[in-house]
């Protein structure tokens, strides 16, 4: 009987296991809070949090917008800048030699932690938060795109030069497609990372957004609102991750990483 049930468990698809263990967690959490009578400020029950999610949806939606804007703009700016610089690196070996080690050194700076410095320079507001998110996305994309643009197969490159392809055609047909898997693996990190960057930089640099809401409701001791805001922020990060995965599957259906393990 036990063997049987463990086999059924093992044969379930991955996502349903996640959902199931998640559901078990929530049930246990609800039982623990009501049976042990844990005070709601220490650990609000799932029921209280979901009620807060519904009741306070106006505030949550209102504060979601600035965070979404910061994360999206910073993500786009950081990726665009990084992609342009990487393309320059591939064209000019001198530029790469001079700048890539610098970029790798700068990457190890704890970026979100320098928000106070950027706030001092750019002032409080969107400029600072977008700049921080941009920096968070910039370095991983730069390193991976450069690596990807260089990963072109020699044979394909020779073939294109035999066919007298222009430089633009070589980029479009060969270099960018072979760089895409590298770019996406950077984006899987920077997508959720830009949400986190926006949240945390809001603590220092603005008085709006989900990050601000988390801190503000904590100081007002509205603990269930803290939880609700964290849940919305997590959903945003998970959505970012999911969107990157979706785009990857659409654009990279030809690539072995999509066919290998399924």
């Amino acid at each position, binding site marked *: 009987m036990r063997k049987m049930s*463990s086999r059924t*468990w*093992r044969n379930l698809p*991955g996502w349903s*296991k*996640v959902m199931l*263990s*998640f559901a078990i*967690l929530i049930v246990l959490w609800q039982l623990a809070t009501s049976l042990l009578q844990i005070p709601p*400020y*220490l650990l609000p029950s799932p029921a209280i949090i979901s009620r807060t999610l519904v009741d306070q949806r106006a505030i949550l939606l209102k504060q979601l917008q600035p965070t979404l804007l910061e994360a999206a703009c910073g993500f786009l700016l950081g990726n665009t800048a990084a992609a342009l610089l990487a393309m320059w690196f591939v064209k000019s070996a*001198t530029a790469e*030699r*001079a*700048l*890539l*080690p*610098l970029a790798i*050194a700068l990457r*190890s*700076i*704890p970026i*979100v*932690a*320098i928000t*106070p*410095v950027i*706030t*001092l*320079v750019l002032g409080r507001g969107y400029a600072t938060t977008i700049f921080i998110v941009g920096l968070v996305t910039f370095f991983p994309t730069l390193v991976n795109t450069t690596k990807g643009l260089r990963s072109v197969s020699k044979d394909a490159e020779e073939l294109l030069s035999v066919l007298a392809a222009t430089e633009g055609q070589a980029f479009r047909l060969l270099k960018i497609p072979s760089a895409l898997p590298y770019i996406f693996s950077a984006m899987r990190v920077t997508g*959720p990372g830009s*949400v*986190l960057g926006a*949240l*945390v930089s809001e*603590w*220092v640099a603005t008085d709006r957004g*989900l*990050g601000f809401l*988390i*801190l503000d409701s*904590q100081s007002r001791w509205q*603990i269930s609102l*803290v*939880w609700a805001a*964290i849940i919305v*922020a*997590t959903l945003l*990060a*998970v959505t970012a*991750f999911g969107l990157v995965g979706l785009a990857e599957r659409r654009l990279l259906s030809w690539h072995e990483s999509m066919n290998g393990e399924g």
Partner: protein
Amino acid sequence: MTPSLLTKLKNGLSLSLIILLVLVWELTIQFLGLKNPPVPAPSQVLVALFEARLVFLTNLFPTLAEAAGGFFLGNLIAVATAMLFVRHRAIEETFYPLAVVLHSIPLMAIIPLLIIWFGPGYASKVALTTLVSFFPGLVNTVKGLKSVNPQALELMEVWGARGWTVFWKVRLPSALPYIFAGLKIAAPASVLGAVVAEWIGSRQGIGFLMLWEMFNYNPPRLWGAMVISAGVTMLSFWLLSLVERLAIPWHESVQQTGGAPKE
């Protein structure tokens, strides 16, 4: 050209560019002659670092303690959990997906909750750095413990080796490169976590100092604090690479590039 000469040349070009940039920066600020600009000249930052060295040192210690404490605790728990997962598949299949779900929470966003649970002192910061170190440690150790060469396992079985012998002689050595890859993610992340956690309701640490100098408008000291936090991060990474080279000199990731194994 030999590869070593080529890398020397590369480093030289980058280094001279950095020196040039710093010089241009210094001269621009001096030339503009602004009084206490938000972007101070590098020399002003150096002077501030020297003059306020006691302030920086007293605030560096709490941050180091928080980052290091959580780093060790988180990785210790992660390795223990990974060992449990590898020995008992049922536990792994139940809890590993859950760990992946929990990992997708933007961890730093829960700092306000950690402060409610553990207070504004060391405990809440160490709790955060523990969490931040735990997930990369767990994922990498599980991957590493599973990456064992099956022939080596068979050989151990033929020799009649027991579970723990197999673990010490085969599984752990082959997991070490992966564990180090996790540690190299966790170390900078715990420094970052400690600094950011100190923004909220803390009275000491580099993160607290940064906010304090921001509100009091003291750019040279603020930039000095930033230099220190960046330095600590780089130092932690460099130290781990050194330990890695000493611990697994036989592994290709150390011999070739000194980097982490590929995914």
